């Protein structure tokens, strides 16, 4: 469970203080699918970084499963990122010198426990890329790369998946495939938080939080979320590969 209270992130820009996130309070229960939407400069990325424990709040408290993140040291934050959060980026962030499988295994390298080969292969199979395990990232399409990135995010079986504009660089079909996977992960019980600036993408979530100028301006449940699987089925066949 995510619980933010009066959280601010203040940057010092040439002597001027900028509140990228300004006194924000947000609560996300386990198993929710939340989209965070807003124009650029609304504080989406900063909020995302805070949620992902890549950064800590300047003010306010952020509790993750009851634990106050702001009080953790760098090593503890690294461990939280490693074990409890799966991150998906707009630009995939795959390491070019590693195969798909090795990219998926990367978080295991920094983990405490002992998971290995089979887990990474299963994660790749779960995103439909079991056959491409030994391909290099540049041999994969954008959509495939993003699915490798999702497999990497899932390798340590985190309760929370954070996706920052995961479809931003993808064509419609690939984007929908990614959304389909995220929806499936949510159905399996994982908390999914999606950051986007596209309304159509946000509507795949069951709750949409709108940001503007570092504040939450709207927080609404989505009555009938879009189903990516259905949308994929309706896409014209000739678009398919």
């Amino acid at each position: 469970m995510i619980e933010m209270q009066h959280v601010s992130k203040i940057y010092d820009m040439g002597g001027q203080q900028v509140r990228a996130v300004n006194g924000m309070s947000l609560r996300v229960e386990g198993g929710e699918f939340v989209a965070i939407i807003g124009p650029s400069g609304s504080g989406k990325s900063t909020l995302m970084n805070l949620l992902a424990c890549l950064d800590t709040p300047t003010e306010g408290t952020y509790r993750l499963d009851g634990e106050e993140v702001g009080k953790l040291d760098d090593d503890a934050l690294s461990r939280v990122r490693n074990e409890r959060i799966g991150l998906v980026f707009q630009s995939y962030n795959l390491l070019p010198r590693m195969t798909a499988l090795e990219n998926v295994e990367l978080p295991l390298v920094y983990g405490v426990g002992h998971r290995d080969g089979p887990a990474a292969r299963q994660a790749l199979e779960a995103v439909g890329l079991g056959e491409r395990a030994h391909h290099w990232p540049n041999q994969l399409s954008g959509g495939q790369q993003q699915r490798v990135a999702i497999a990497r995010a899932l390798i340590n079986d985190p309760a929370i998946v954070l996706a920052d504009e995961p479809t931003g660089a993808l064509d419609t079909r690939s984007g929908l495939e990614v959304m389909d996977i995220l929806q499936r992960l949510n159905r399996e019980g994982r908390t999914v938080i999606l950051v986007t600036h596209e309304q159509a993408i946000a509507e795949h979530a069951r709750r949409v939080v709108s940001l503007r100028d570092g504040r939450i301006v709207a927080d609404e449940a989505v009555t009938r979320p879009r189903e990516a699987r259905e949308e994929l089925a309706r896409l014209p066949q000739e678009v398919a590969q």
Partner: protein
Amino acid sequence: MKTAVTLREAHRALSANKTRSLLMMLGVTIGITALTIIVAVGQGANAQVSARLGKLWSANPIMVTASAGSRSAGPHMGMGVGTGSQTLTYEDLRAIESEVPNVRKALPGLIKTDVMVKYREQSAVSEAWGITPEFREYRDWDVESGEYLSDEDVSGTARVALLGQTLARKLFGEEDPVGASIRVDNVAFKVKGVLVAKGANPAGRDLDDRVMIPITTFARRLYHVTYLSNIVVQLQDVTRMPETAAAITKLLRERHHIIPPKQDDFSVRTPEVMMEVFSGTTRTLTLFLEIVAAIALLVGGLVVMNIMLVSVGERTREIGLRRAVGARRKDILAQFLAEAVAITLEGGLVGVVVGVAGAKVLGALRDMPTLISWQAVAVAVIFSVLVGVAFGVYPARRAARLHPVDALRME
């Protein structure tokens, strides 16, 4: 992060940019090559010196003589029974054996000059030495005919003598002295053997003009002395001769209650000239190579550091991603340090190979002794790793200190 994975990733990062990696290796390779040659030449010279010293020292070990004379005085001038000081004793000998480190054995010696030696009607003024059987081995000085003195001769104060060749010729001419009866300062002795000719010592003194008798006979039957003329000290490790000589001097000053400016009543002589073997070409070459090694390792290290910094800059996003999936600062530090060390170690190993070859060529060309030992390889490896750590730590720290958010934002 697991070491094996760190190493594998370091290797991969380095093989991804071969030109750059070779450039990084070059300086270290040159430095380690020079270093390997230094060690090889140094150890070769050392071995040669040790071999020479070993020979010379066993023939000419530390000699403690009872004399207030200066070190530059000739070996036997103004020494010996009746002329020198009488303070050197068997107790001193036992103290040297038991208290001074690196001493293998100490041997007593008595000398008397102006000794009248007679055979029938022939007589000659010579020099008498009271010795023990070990003298043969120490001085590498055997008999040419007859037999050497035995332990029984010493314990039984036997009246037996060994003659130097000059003295033998003076007394016996062409006759065989072995078994003949002679008189030394009017005491009858039987000639047991004739010594091998030694010729003159560097000071021009004829070493063959002497008679050697058991030290006990010398002390009790002939001259009735309780002190010693000299103590010959044999060492375990001849290369540690200077320290041992100093320790002996210190011990004897204590035992003889000599406090400067009071003059020593003994002198400790060592064949100092031998140290000069180290000088000359070997030293010049070693100095030159040391400078080359130092400069090359420094430049090599700086190249490694600079390229690592560029690499950290280029891989900022990778660092951000690794941090995002759970790498701690120390994992990033370890990763970049491993890369730096891998490159310097590889460069160093090439340097060892080139250095060994270089040392061999040099040895053949300049007729210089070189010795390749595991120490040389160990020194090279250690230096390679040290350079990697020393010059890799700054870039690695830069990488480790990047904030994950900033690192991920980098394009």
